[in-house]
């Protein structure tokens, strides 16, 4: 009988090729999964989101564990010094469509996190919540609770746009070098028509307060040719540097049955499909590139070429993309990896300067 199993796992070794190019930020845990109401490996997809420390960096000493359990739905927990505090906050069921139902990121203050929730069938229910952990009090809660997105977030409705009932069908968070806040970009759709509008809102420890900024003014435009008639959900990104907007659409009427990606540069129909970008887009990076983690494969696309082009591909194995943050003034990509040993879960957090992300494919 062998003394032990072979000390080898091809998938992990293959990922290590990628991981060696990443900076190991830190390790969180081991944590008893039961303390976070987690299940076990196999039915849990868990991500550790380190805290943004409000000083232009991150810390793994505290953070948030986002879990996506097909059995019990999704939830977020607060962890500090490898221990959970308060009760996990439920985020509802997994999405029934191809879009993620949640966008969760820590915000630039101590122990705060923001979660956007999207309702597959009723986008008027889309909402957000700020939650705060307190290790001293042993609590994790949201003083303001869930706040519906579609109520008066943009000033001065202009017919035919009816903001009181407008749908926010896509939200993205874009990192900002400001140590106190990041930016979020929202894509609004008119109540009953295909009129669209984009807005910008600060994300910080404070609740998002209207009015936001209509990034292309209050002119509305119709993009239903590629997002679909009365679209309920897209993955939306806005580049404040180039003023280019992107959507990643599942089952677009122009490209049914697949993820397709589209760009527009103004409020008039100057738009086009990025046919070279053929996977779900999970982030618009500060480099102007689009990043996909679909199928646990990292793909970096250059969307500035006429149809977009693939720049790099690399395996992510069981590593999860957390987001892009500024660390010491440098835009940096963060990844989380859950490692299950026996009845304990440990998280590795990795980073890489955004400008070097493509090197993972070399």
């Amino acid at each position: 009988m062998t003394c032990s199993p072979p000390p080898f796992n091809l998938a992990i070794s293959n990922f290590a090729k990628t991981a060696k190019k990443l900076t190991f930020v830190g390790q969180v845990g081991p944590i008893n999964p039961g303390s976070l109401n987690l299940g076990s490996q196999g039915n849990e997809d868990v991500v550790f989101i380190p805290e943004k420390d409000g000083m232009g960096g991150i810390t793994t000493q505290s953070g948030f564990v986002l879990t996506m359990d097909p059995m019990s739905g999704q939830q977020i927990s607060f962890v500090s010094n490898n221990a959970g505090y308060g009760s996990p906050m439920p985020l509802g069921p997994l999405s029934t469509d191809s879009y993620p139902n949640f966008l969760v990121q820590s915000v630039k203050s101590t122990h705060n996190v923001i979660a956007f929730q999207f309702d597959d069938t009723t986008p008027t229910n889309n909402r957000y919540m700020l939650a705060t952990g307190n290790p001293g009090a042993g609590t994790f809660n949201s003083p303001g609770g869930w706040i519906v997105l579609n109520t008066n977030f943009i000033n001065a409705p202009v017919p035919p746009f009816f903001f009181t009932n407008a749908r926010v069908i896509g939200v993205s968070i874009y990192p900002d070098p400001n140590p106190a806040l990041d930016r979020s970009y929202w894509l609004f759709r008119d109540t009953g028509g295909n009129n669209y509008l984009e807005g910008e809102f600060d994300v910080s420890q404070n609740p998002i307060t209207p009015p936001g900024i209509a990034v292309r003014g209050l002119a509305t435009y119709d993009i239903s040719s590629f997002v679909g008639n009365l679209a309920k959900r897209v993955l939306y990104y806005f580049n404040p540097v180039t003023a280019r907007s992107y959507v990643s659409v599942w089952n677009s009427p122009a490209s049914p049955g697949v993820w397709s990606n589209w760009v527009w540069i103004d409020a008039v129909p100057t738009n086009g499909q990025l046919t070279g970008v053929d996977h779900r887009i999970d982030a618009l990076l500060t480099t102007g590139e689009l990043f996909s983690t679909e199928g646990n494969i990292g793909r970096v696309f250059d969307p500035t070429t006429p149809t977009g082009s693939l720049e790099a591909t690399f395996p992510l194995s069981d590593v999860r993309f957390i987001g892009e943050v500024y660390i010491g003034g440098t835009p940096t990509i963060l990844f989380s990896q859950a490692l299950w040993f026996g009845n304990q879960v440990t998280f590795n957090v990795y980073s890489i300067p955004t400008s070097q992300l493509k090197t993972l494919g070399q």
Partner: protein
Amino acid sequence: MPFTVSAQTAEPSSGLQRSLLLYVDQQQKGGLTENQLLVLSRSLLISLQAGIPGIAVSDAAGSGQSASPAALSDLALKAGADFWLWAQVSVDAGKTQLHVRGFDILAQEKKFDATLTRESLLSPLELPFEKWDDLVSLVTSSLSSGEPQGQGTPGPQEVTLTVRALPGTLITGPGGAKAQAGKDGFASLSFPAPGEYSLHATLSGYYPLTRRFFLSDNREVFLEQTPHSWWALDASLLEMGYPSFDVSRFILLNSLYVKLGITTYAVGLAFTDTQAFTSNPLTNLVLQTGIYLRPDDVLFRPYVNLGAFLRIVVAPGTLVGIDPLSWGGLQFSIGTEIGRSPRGRFFFEYQPMLYAASVPGLFQASFGSGNPPAGWSFSPKSAFNFLCFRVGYRWPL
């Protein structure tokens, strides 16, 4: 040059006439014809009569009797003998062996049970002239050790053992007596006879030899010394499951060596509830240096190794090259060879291995999500397998 040393022998004591019955047969397919068997019997008879003064020897070869001790005793009594000697000959693999057993009927005691070997096939022409001094000595000592002794039984004497060996060979005998083979290749030692003695022969560059001899008279022996090999090949199983092959090259002959090896995980024995074999596209290349801690003619010859290993992954299309998770590590082993044969020996090693890990936690994760395997401990940048063993066989080349 040969030399001799004298020694005292016992005095004959009683004048009791002893009579011996000699019974000779052969194993089935023993290789001798009936005539040859008869010649052998007579050769033994003559040697006994000539070598043991005063003894009466009768020959029962060809009697067709069973060779059971009881039957031989009956046969001896009927022949008026008080001692029987049964000799069974066999010829095999170029050797002639004589299994002899002596029984003293007066003392009702088995006196000896031995095998005498002639390192050649005895031809019919040689048989009558073969000296059976060793047998004569056995019988003589048996008769003199019991209360009844044959008249004229020879007493102890000093005999000379002349050893032919490679020049420079150091011969060590009982009690630390030493002699060194000169340029002519001869060394001599003297011993009280009869008796059985052990000689140890050493010569740099050659495997040491230990030989046992029964001496009843002056004798010359030839030591067939085998040159020590500079190379060795190991075939083994790491962790009782993964095949390994190593080639060793001595730096200091018979002592210090370097070793290059390969361990593959492509095929391994698993013996789990669900599988008998495992297969992983991983191969370890191992470079070690080691040293033996004892001479190589001991039954258990310990050694230690220290080296490094490199993990090579060959998974075309996915990963080919040094394992990015762990380039390899260091390994130490302490083991022992078992046996004295210069042709090959089994070995057993305890071999803890220290793995370098490039990413904290990932090496441990490569074992899966269960509890950490027994015998392993993990740190952020390393993993230590402290319960690792290897068994195998080593051939000098």
